[in-house]
């Protein structure tokens, strides 16, 4: 089966040693255009999502209904939001583990300020500013001081969560304006799509356009492959990184606000563990943890795939123990399978080149 898809006698990516003497025009071309898009790594995630949706709609009673759309989307919105800046950050080869703590800090702040009698719109603005500040702090340490993002954000993960505890303690604030909390769970007519999805879609569009259609976005891929090379071709690596973390902080604050109003509860432990859910979904969506690879549509499909799987299993009353095991296996499969694939290809390629060499010399 697999042989038929690679009928070329020569290796697809030109091997640097064996083929460097031949003119480039003789080389077989890589897949281009529609075929390339249809077979890309994130297209696979989208197929998997569609396949699972069809399966769930057929096999799970009551799954195919607008109610599912509503509950499912409400569940995935925080992940979906934070996954956007996270995709960009991971594409540059960095990471941000502090996102969930930033959301928790925002939630705590929101509770305290609102309980203190501040106007709700002012509270929201201050929360966004707090998220921005958290992102700037990360950005400063990582981009300006050049510290490794993993170490910095592990630190701020604990720091921001600690600050959230300092701000609100063990209390929970719940008496947010009814109209506002109702808005955050309201649906667009009979479609079941949450109203807030409009805002989420705008944010997804923003990050999608930023990554795929601007020089800034293309620069992020370059940074992911090699920071030195990116600097060499004129990309301001430090500035790009700084703004990515600021963006991550702002979006995390939005997620924190959403979380607080959706659950009508401001607590210091809100959104705990969310960073791992986000990173898992981003990786499932085809973003390489080594950087340089990944797309926004793929990530959206990845987030929705995990969300749908969770929801479907819950609707089927499958225990959470099974659920986390399944999502874990899925993640490993999605990361390992392409690596195994490329390892096999590499091995075959080397063998073919060796054979060619021995024929030529004979």
């Amino acid at each position, binding site marked *: 089966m*697999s042989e*038929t*898809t*690679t009928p070329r006698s020569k290796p697809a*990516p030109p091997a640097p040693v064996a083929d460097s003497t031949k003119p480039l025009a003789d080389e077989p071309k*890589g897949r281009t255009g529609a075929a390339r898009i249809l*077979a*890309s*790594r994130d297209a*696979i995630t989208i197929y*998997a999502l569609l*396949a699972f949706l069809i*399966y769930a709609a057929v*096999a799970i*009673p*009551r799954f195919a*209904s607008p109610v*599912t759309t509503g*509950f499912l989307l*409400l*569940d995935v919105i925080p992940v979906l939001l934070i996954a956007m800046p996270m995709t960009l950050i991971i594409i540059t080869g960095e990471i941000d583990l502090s996102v969930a703590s930033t959301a928790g800090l925002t939630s705590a702040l929101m509770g305290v300020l609102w309980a203190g009698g501040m106007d709700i719109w002012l509270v929201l603005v201050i929360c966004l500013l707090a998220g921005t500040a958290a992102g700037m702090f990360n950005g400063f340490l990582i981009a300006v001081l050049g510290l490794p993002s993993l170490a910095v954000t592990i630190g701020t993960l604990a720091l921001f969560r600690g600050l959230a505890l300092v701000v609100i303690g063990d209390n*929970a604030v*719940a008496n947010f304006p009814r109209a506002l*909390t109702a808005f955050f*769970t309201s649906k667009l007519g009979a479609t079941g799509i949450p109203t807030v999805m409009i805002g989420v879609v705008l944010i997804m569009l923003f990050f999608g356009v930023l990554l795929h259609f601007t020089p800034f976005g293309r620069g992020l891929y370059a940074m992911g492959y090699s920071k030195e090379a990116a600097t060499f071709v004129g990309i301001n690596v430090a500035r790009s990184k700084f703004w990515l973390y600021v963006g991550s902080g702002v979006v995390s604050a939005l997620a924190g606000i959403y979380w607080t109003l959706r*659950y*009508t*509860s401001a*607590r210091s*432990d*809100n959104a705990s*563990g969310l960073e791992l859910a986000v990173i898992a979904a981003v990786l499932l969506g085809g973003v390489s943890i*080594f950087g340089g*690879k990944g797309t926004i549509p793929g990530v959206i499909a990845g987030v929705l795939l995990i969300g749908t*799987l*969770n*929801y*479907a*299993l*819950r*609707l*089927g*009353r*499958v*225990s*959470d*123990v099974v659920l*986390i095991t*399944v999502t874990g296996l*899925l993640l490993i*499969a*999605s990361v390992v399978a*392409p690596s*195994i*694939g*490329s*390892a*096999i*290809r*590499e091995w075959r390629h080397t063998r073919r080149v060796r054979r060619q060499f021995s024929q030529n010399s004979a």
Partner: protein
Amino acid sequence: MMFNRKNTGLGRRTVPLVALTAAAALALTACNGGAGTPGETGAVEEQTITFIPKQLNNPYTDVVLSGGKKGSEEAGFASSQVVGPLEASASSQVSFINAETQAGTDVIVIAANDPDAVCTALGEARSAGAKIVAFDSDANPDCRDVFISQVVAKEVALIQTKLIAEQIGGSGEIAILSATANATNQNEWIKFMEEDLASNPDYKDIKLVAKVYGDDDDTKSFQEAQGLLQAHPNLKGIISPTTVGIAATARYLSTSAYKGKVALTGLGLPNEMRPFVKDGTVTEFALWDPAQLGYVAAFAGKALVEGKITGAEGDTFTAGELGDRTVEEGGVVIVGPPTVFNKDNIDQYDF
């Protein structure tokens, strides 16, 4: 760096897709098979009940749920499920409530991790036709029909004074070994005990000589028990209204000269206290039976579904072998007096 190569062949790209769907399909079919028949409602005898505890895999929760399962069967539910988060976080229960709403369960019995965070989701469940029973830990009263509460604080206090009075023969010095000095429930119980000792003529010869705090720390409780007996040589009894304190005190008494001479009672776990009851250190102690909580919750759910009660004050329903229960102010149903454990019945309990 070969693992970081761009993919090139279509054939191999299908591998993750196949693996993905296969894994998902496998998990789903395997698990659906064992999960009974979810969502098959409609006819009256097809009612379903779902328990959502604070978290799964917790020993106390397991006992509560075993009572719930027994109650659901006896009350006549077609099927009962237990779903819930692995972590007791405030918002983790919401997606379970949502899924249950959609699965069309008739009764949701929930121990809320956060009374308000679950409120919106419970509201949606109610508008979809489900009845909401809170148990163990109340949800906001606006979003549930009834709350099943363990016991009344006063009853917990009075049963302990009654037990100690019986065990010391109605006269002598007693002491209290509590948890922390600012524990709300402990202090409420102690307040009721003191009132009872002061006002009840039967207890006029009993004198409360000391209140000490073991901070629910095993070692500290042990040392405090030791200190109590040294400081008060005429002490005839100790009340420890905390499971940690009573176990530590019992351990000290059982190895000391006071064994069998100084009475000990309070609130304890049968599994922890069993050896001390068997060796004669402790004769009787009390605690509510967590299983009864789940049991009564199931019957309350049944009564709500059948429209026998609405959760209004004064409504009554029958909770199987536990007899009639009345809905009190604020939609609260009290499970009943605490259970008293002694060497005759302690082997019937496992928690």
